[in-house]
């Protein structure tokens, strides 16, 4: 058996507060983007910002879809996914070990592979679901303020964003397998995220910068999903998950 539905459900249940609180937070901050847009427009009429910020903000306030995209994918979802990836990926195995339930779980008639896959899948499904649902919801919410965004256009940012998030998630899994403490694993995951994002600070490395892909900047510019980037990041994510699996199989418990 390569998958255990019981372990999957248990994982979902165990992470319920993470996705309830995280999802509610993401939904509220997401809803604030369209709802505050008219007020932001009014507020900024009397304020003059210096040079580059003025033109960037002005461009956003004149173009609602660009405003929503840049703030949602580039800020809200971006930060949320990093935190959730570190929490879910880092704590999946380490939390079992630190609370002492790991021996009980591994003594059950479930293969170690099934435990790994079920746990990994549960975290990934949660990560994707919590990110995707508010994203989809932003389109009807925009109608409330009289703005219109095309849903099929807006969700084009999701594939590359979720692929990037899955890479962070897999990297955090590696740390969660190595470290016995879930807090340490989450902290190490956060440090790992910063290290990976640092590549984006160098203009010459923008094409391969994960921060750029997580914010789906390329998709917004072209209007098309960057499938080669999605495929490359997904492969990297699978490789990281494979490395986590090998470490997991090789450990004594």
């Amino acid at each position, binding site marked *: *058996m390569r998958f*255990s*539905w*019981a*372990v999957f459900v*248990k994982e979902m249940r*165990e992470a319920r507060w993470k996705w309830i609180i995280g999802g509610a937070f993401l939904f509220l901050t997401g809803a604030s983007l369209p709802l505050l847009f008219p007020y932001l427009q009014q507020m900024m009429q009397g304020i003059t910002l210096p040079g580059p910020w003025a033109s960037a903000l002005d461009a956003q306030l004149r173009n609602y879809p660009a405003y929503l995209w840049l703030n949602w994918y580039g800020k809200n979802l971006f930060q949320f996914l990093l935190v959730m990836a570190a929490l879910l990926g880092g704590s999946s195995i380490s939390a079992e070990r630190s*609370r*002492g*339930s790991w*021996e*009980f779980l*591994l*003594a*059950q*008639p*479930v*293969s*170690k592979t099934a435990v790994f896959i079920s746990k990994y899948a549960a975290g990934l499904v949660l990560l994707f679901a919590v990110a995707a649902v508010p994203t989809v919801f932003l389109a009807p919410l925009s109608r409330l303020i009289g703005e219109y965004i095309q849903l099929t256009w807006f969700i084009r940012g999701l594939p590359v964003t979720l692929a990037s998030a899955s890479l962070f998630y897999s990297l955090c899994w590696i740390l969660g397998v190595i470290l016995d403490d879930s807090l340490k694993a989450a902290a190490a995951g956060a440090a790992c995220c910063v290290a990976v994002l640092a590549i984006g600070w160098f203009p010459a490395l923008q094409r391969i910068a994960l921060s750029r892909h997580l914010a789906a900047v390329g998709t917004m510019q072209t209007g098309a999903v960057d499938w080669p980037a999605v495929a490359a990041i997904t492969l990297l994510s699978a490789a990281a998950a494979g490395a986590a699996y090998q470490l997991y199989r090789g450990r*004594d*418990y």
Partner: protein
Amino acid sequence: MNEPVIEVCQLSCVFGRVTAVREVSFAVPQGSIFALVGRNGAGKTTTLKSLMGLVRPASGEARILGLDCQKQGYRLRRRVGYLPESRANYAYMTVSEVLQFARSLHSCWDEDWVRDSLSEFDLSPGKRVGDLSAGMKTQLGFLLATGHRPDVLILDEPTAGLDPVRIRQLLRLLVQKTAQEGCTILLSSHALHHVERIADHVAVMADGQIETIGQIEDLKHSEKRIRVVFQVDPPQELFERDEIVRLQRDGRRFLVTVQGNPERVMQDFRRIPHFALDLLDMNLEEMFWEYTGRDESDEV
């Protein structure tokens, strides 16, 4: 003797520079209760963990019911119940939820036995696991290990945290499991008086090795103690013989541990004027001290 259900052959477990288990070999016959006893760090838990596939041995092999513990762990765990050293479980779940979770992982589950045992143990199904006492967690762990009616039970310190009434209850259940269901039990314990009550085989472990192994009754009969108080200083050569494995002296008072037939030693002692000369049976605790407590100074 029944066919061995658990076979451990030259098993060694190494963690970094520490050898936790060193070339351990033993066999547990079907339907028997086999106890691993030893001090903390003797290697008991590591041995049990390697049988459950939680620790990979550096060398040697272990088989349960003919299945390789490392390569056929999944098949093996369907037929083996394990009570781990750590009783911590999913603290946020209730007792019934943990049992439900375990049931969902097993293809067969004896609901009646679990329900009856729950009421016998006074475990409330609605109580959160995190709120259970240490003893209740042990009881819950025992139910989780036995709910699927395993052929083999591996129990790490099964009486830890239990009060005397619960210990008695648990020991009775263990004996029942072997007598009525033919279940084979391998357990580790510090509570030697409990082990002596139920186990038929014992292995004393120290520093990762098995110091002595066998049926409890045979082991107890294989060694005797002679307590003697001489009236005069005895000659040194009186104690220089193969049968004497240990000698403790306090003035003219001697406590002599003899392996094999003690009668010849007694005869020689009788020839020396003495105030007292007694032949003493050894219990498991005294045997344990013989093998594991040699560094400790104890009174004669």
